[in-house]
């Protein structure tokens, strides 16, 4: 019942249909063939990377993968449902520390349960979900930016707990992370393993684990967004009351998405712990949460690919600046009084967030979509990825009209202008000409 009105409309929800078309098998039309080719190329590149690139890139890539998993989760919450969360770092911390605590053997002052590592990882993700569930009475009732402020509490309370619960977290100094062991295969440097004359250490092995996890996480999130829950989430973002009227249980959905996104956060935390090989409470602070928000805005709000793109950008930037800082003007060595690479990176992506909202609604993903000429439906799907659409909630006729290319509306003066900027099309739908 809830999504029937949108389904009746031929161009009801561009992104949902786009996502669904991607999920279903289709004939080998030109479009589908190109899609399959790009995907296989991407997979081939991803698999080949550990054989050719050095450790630095693998490490950076692993961070980017774990960030991507977390960003996908946050994008489900903030991008697709419109609920701002500043507390994402807290759920990463829950995931990371639960994994460490459950899988480590007790030693010294540190406790541990010594469970098998895959089980510990699954339990860690569930624990993050439970933590999100405990917060859901608030997450379900507050909307948008209100929730953003409320989730600040998670960060500060969470860090307080992390610093004080020394037996679990190791306090200020953190604690080492036991390597993952899957069916007898250890994701660590020893025992030594050589594949195709390339020594496979922890980074190379974790690369494949991270890749697998990221792909699963992305596919699942796409499924959620393309299906009924995704439509309900977008409706809540666009018009809460309309969603309620159409039978979407708003509070339950908000709480549910919060739990889901915190589980994604927990999964990202586990990956991060494995990549870092040591967890430090200091890391899971407000800055990390802001990083994640920057990722989804820069990449593109509300879509999986956008989250991944943003995560790669934000997490690679400081590492690239550190590595190539010598060659760049304005970036100084850390401690020399100038702008250190980490600071330069922060300033850059802070500015990028502002610039994206000012000039590039839809983020990097929207940019990619704009550079490529596309049929009308796909462009509308790109536009839809940003909740930056003032016309949509108020104007039920908007989506219909917008999805039709300008040439077809028969309006004089604008023939043959199929590719229009977002702004103009908002205006078109806001000010319908008198004759239509």
């Amino acid at each position, binding site marked *: 019942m809830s999504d029937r009105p949108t389904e009746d409309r031929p161009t009801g929800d561009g992104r949902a249909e786009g996502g669904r078309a991607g999920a279903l098998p289709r004939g080998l039309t030109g479009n589908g063939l190109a899609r399959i080719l790009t995907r296989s190329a991407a997979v081939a590149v991803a698999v080949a990377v550990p054989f050719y690139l050095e450790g630095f890139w693998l490490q950076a890539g692993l961070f980017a993968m774990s960030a991507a998993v977390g960003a996908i989760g946050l994008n489900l919450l903030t991008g697709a449902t419109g609920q701002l969360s500043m507390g994402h770092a807290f759920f990463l911390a829950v995931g990371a520390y639960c994994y460490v605590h459950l899988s480590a053997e007790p030693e010294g002052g540190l406790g541990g349960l010594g469970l098998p590592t895959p089980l510990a990882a699954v339990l860690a993700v569930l624990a993050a979900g439970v933590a999100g569930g405990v917060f859901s009475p608030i997450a379900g009732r507050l909307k948008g*930016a*209100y929730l953003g402020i409320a989730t600040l509490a998670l960060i500060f309370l969470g860090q*307080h707990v992390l610093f004080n619960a020394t037996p679990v977290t190791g306090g200020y100094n953190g604690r080492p992370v036991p390597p993952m062991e899957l069916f007898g295969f250890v994701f660590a440097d020893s025992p030594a393993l050589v594949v195709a004359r390339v020594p496979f250490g922890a980074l190379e092995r974790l690369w494949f684990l991270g890749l697998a996890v990221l792909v699963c996480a992305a596919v699942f999130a796409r499924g959620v967004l393309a299906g009924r829950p995704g439509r309900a989430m977008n409706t809540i973002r666009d018009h809460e009351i309309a969603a309620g009227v159409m039978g979407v249980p708003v509070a339950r959905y908000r709480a549910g998405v919060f739990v889901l996104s915190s589980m994604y956060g927990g999964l990202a935390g586990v990956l991060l712990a494995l990549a870092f090989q040591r967890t430090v409470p200091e890391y899971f602070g407000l800055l990390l949460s802001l990083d994640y928000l920057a990722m989804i805005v820069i990449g593109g709000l509300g879509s999986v690919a956008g989250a991944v793109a943003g995560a790669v950008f934000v997490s690679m930037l400081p590492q690239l600046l550190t590595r190539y800082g010598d060659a760049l003007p304005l970036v100084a060595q850390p401690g020399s009084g100038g702008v250190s690479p980490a600071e330069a990176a922060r300033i850059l992506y802070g500015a990028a*967030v502002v610039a994206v*909202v000012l000039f590039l609604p839809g983020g990097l993903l929207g940019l990619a979509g704009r550079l490529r000429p596309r049929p009308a439906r796909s462009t509308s799907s790109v536009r839809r990825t940003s909740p930056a659409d003032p016309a949509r909630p108020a104007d039920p006729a908007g989506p219909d009209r917008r999805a039709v290319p300008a040439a077809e509306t028969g309006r004089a003066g604008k023939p043959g202008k199929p590719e229009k900027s977002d702004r103009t099309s908002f205006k078109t739908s806001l000010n319908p000409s008198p004759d239509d």
Partner: protein
Amino acid sequence: MTTFLELLVNGVSIGAVYALIALGFVIIFRATEVVNFAHASLLLAGGYVVARLHPSIGFWAALAAGVAAAAAVGALVEFLIIRRANTASHGVLAIVTIGVDIVLTTELTRRIGTDVLALGDPWRDRVVRLGPVSVAETRLVALAVAAALIAAFLLAFRHTGWGVAMRATAEDAEAAALMGVRRGRVSMGAWAVAGALAAVAALFLCVFPTPGLDRGTAFAAMKAFPAAILGGLDSTTGALAGGLVIGVTETLVTGYQNDLAFLGRGAGDVAPFLVMVVVLLIRPAGLFGTKEPARV
């Protein structure tokens, strides 16, 4: 009992400072419906200008410059970014302010580095004795100044043309614009006022007994967020009440730290957030916030 009274006076005083910050936050929210996450960095900017200028031009001139600088930064953010943002979604605007905050805070904390900057205030570390209770002079000044500023603004909202224009905009922006209220000017004014209030608050967050302006000051300013949302984001009374609640809680928890050892070290810093969570569980719109009726 003496300890309790001392803590209470200190708590009310620091609460008044939080109320100043929260008031600016609420003013911005009412005028432009933007949740301003860059508020802490406005405060840091004001404090930084005061700290850098006071050795050369004296404290009072430096304070004036700091207030002016923070107001200018606020107005610029509104003029250059918020006004031009290609969106009407408040969630996205909030994220924009986060971007601004990242840039400003990174640059300011980089400039501050590991230093602790004194603000050169004339009260120094003098202590006043009121009967058995001894209170830092700075705390009393903070209380007096905050109370005066808050009272002035509440009166201004009610009786000046600026205040009426702002309330009209908060009530119904479109109708206000049709009646000739210049929305751009109103929202820019709101940002400037909020910046100025934040700069004053920065002064009192950094004077005795706090050692001075350092990297942690932005964190101290973060505690005004719970103050604002606790009272209700759209309520000026709420900002005052929220600020006081947060200030008193924080001071009491810090003061009785030894009796509350089970909460762990540094519990005073996070107590405001705990209070916020509890209040939000009971009243999601805050203590004084209005639950917006929706017209379909």
